């Protein structure tokens, strides 16, 4: 879970970086150039397959572990005060992950399927973004998806380091802080994209 999770985190960094090009507000010139590079670069094309494998493995691992964990406690507690000793999002990673998966299916349908297979309705990916984000419901779903992602990362990033045994007196406090900042900043930047486009702040 840790290795696949951290791999998916590196993808988020690239994805966020590329898409943040829309904030240059140059009519999508920089963004379209970046998208064009991503679509034609052989390494990125190979990594696309690796990414999908990463997502599937992450999900399969989660399912296998969850089934195993459920079996480890056949009789549940009548009263269990989990809030007293752990963060709610650390206990609900499966639910958050499912919400992210639901978001992901919508998201892939909006952009990935169209760019790779069925063809864009609009001329460029930038115009496609503008048209997709002209609907309020799409913007709301994207924002909700990013809230789920944020909480998932808030636990996931630092937990991955713990799972991999990367614990150090000096660095662990930094990892925890950095993981927290990452979990807020990256989903926030992502969420700003549909919001800005819907509001018409990006021309």
């Amino acid at each position: 879970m840790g290795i696949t999770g951290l791999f998916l985190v590196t993808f988020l960094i690239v994805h966020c970086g590329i898409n943040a090009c829309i904030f240059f507000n140059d009519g999508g010139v920089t963004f379209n150039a970046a998208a064009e590079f991503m679509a034609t670069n052989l390494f990125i094309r190979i990594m696309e397959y690796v990414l999908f494998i990463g997502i599937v493995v992450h999900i399969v691992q989660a399912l296998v572990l969850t089934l195993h964990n459920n079996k480890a406690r056949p009789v549940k507690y009548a009263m269990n005060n989990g809030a007293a000793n752990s963060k709610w999002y650390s206990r609900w990673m499966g639910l958050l992950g499912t919400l992210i998966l639901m978001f992901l299916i919508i998201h892939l349908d909006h952009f990935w399927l169209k760019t790779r297979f069925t063809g864009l309705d609009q001329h460029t990916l930038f115009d496609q973004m503008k048209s997709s984000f002209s609907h309020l419901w799409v913007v709301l779903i994207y924002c909700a998806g990013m809230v789920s992602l944020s909480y998932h990362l808030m636990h996931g990033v630092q937990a991955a380091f713990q799972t991999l045994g990367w614990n150090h007196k000096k660095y662990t406090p930094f990892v925890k802080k950095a993981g927290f900042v990452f979990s807020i900043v990256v989903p926030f930047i992502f969420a700003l994209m549909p919001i800005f486009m819907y509001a018409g702040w990006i021309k």
Partner: protein
Amino acid sequence: MNLTLKVWRQNSAKEAGNLVSYPVKDISEDMSFLEMFDVLNEQLITKGEVPIAFDHDCREGICGMCSMFINGRPHGPKQGVTTCQLHMRSFKDGDTIVVEPWRAKAFPVVKDLVVDRSAFDRIIASGGFISVNAGNAQDANNIPIPKPDADKAFDAAACIGCGACVATCKNSSAMLFVSAKVSQLALLPQGKIEATMRVKEMVAQMDKEGFGNCSNTGACEIECPKGISLENIARMNREFYSANITE
């Protein structure tokens, strides 16, 4: 103090159990939680009912026998104490207190609040030892050990094996217990020799017993009456990976 207790009653591992309400009256707030149970059991015996079975031994927080899941938390609402050190002043007059046994497949209920924790013993027997004859106590500083290592080993060795970590873990994982036992030996020169074998065997036994997997919620560290740190779990993960890579 007058309280209402809702206690898990279960005749044996095979029979189903249920929560039974018991009113208890005139409880002193200076009593320990277990003494309050003694009072209740005296009342039950007088009435000709079967007393509630619960584990206890030293009643001073060092043996790790007492094991009650009180109001949704192992060893009750206080941090850093076992059930025997929990006093009734931690509750309010008129409170309803729910008391359940540790719940995990690896800890089957024997009777009422008593669970079988021999899974822990089997994990220790699988590798939680050193195979050399230690002989008499050596002269101090005969084997130089860095102070930070000695401190960490000592902190890990504070684990009393009560099972609160398993009880509170949403996955019933025994990682905190096993990692404390792995760490306590792995940090010291006497234990380093067998470190790779130890971590592999103990993790294998832990999995065999049917404990769940660690998802790093950190609940175990909060509920551990001896304050065993999550750092031990990371150390065990590290030991485990390197043991599997090197061999």
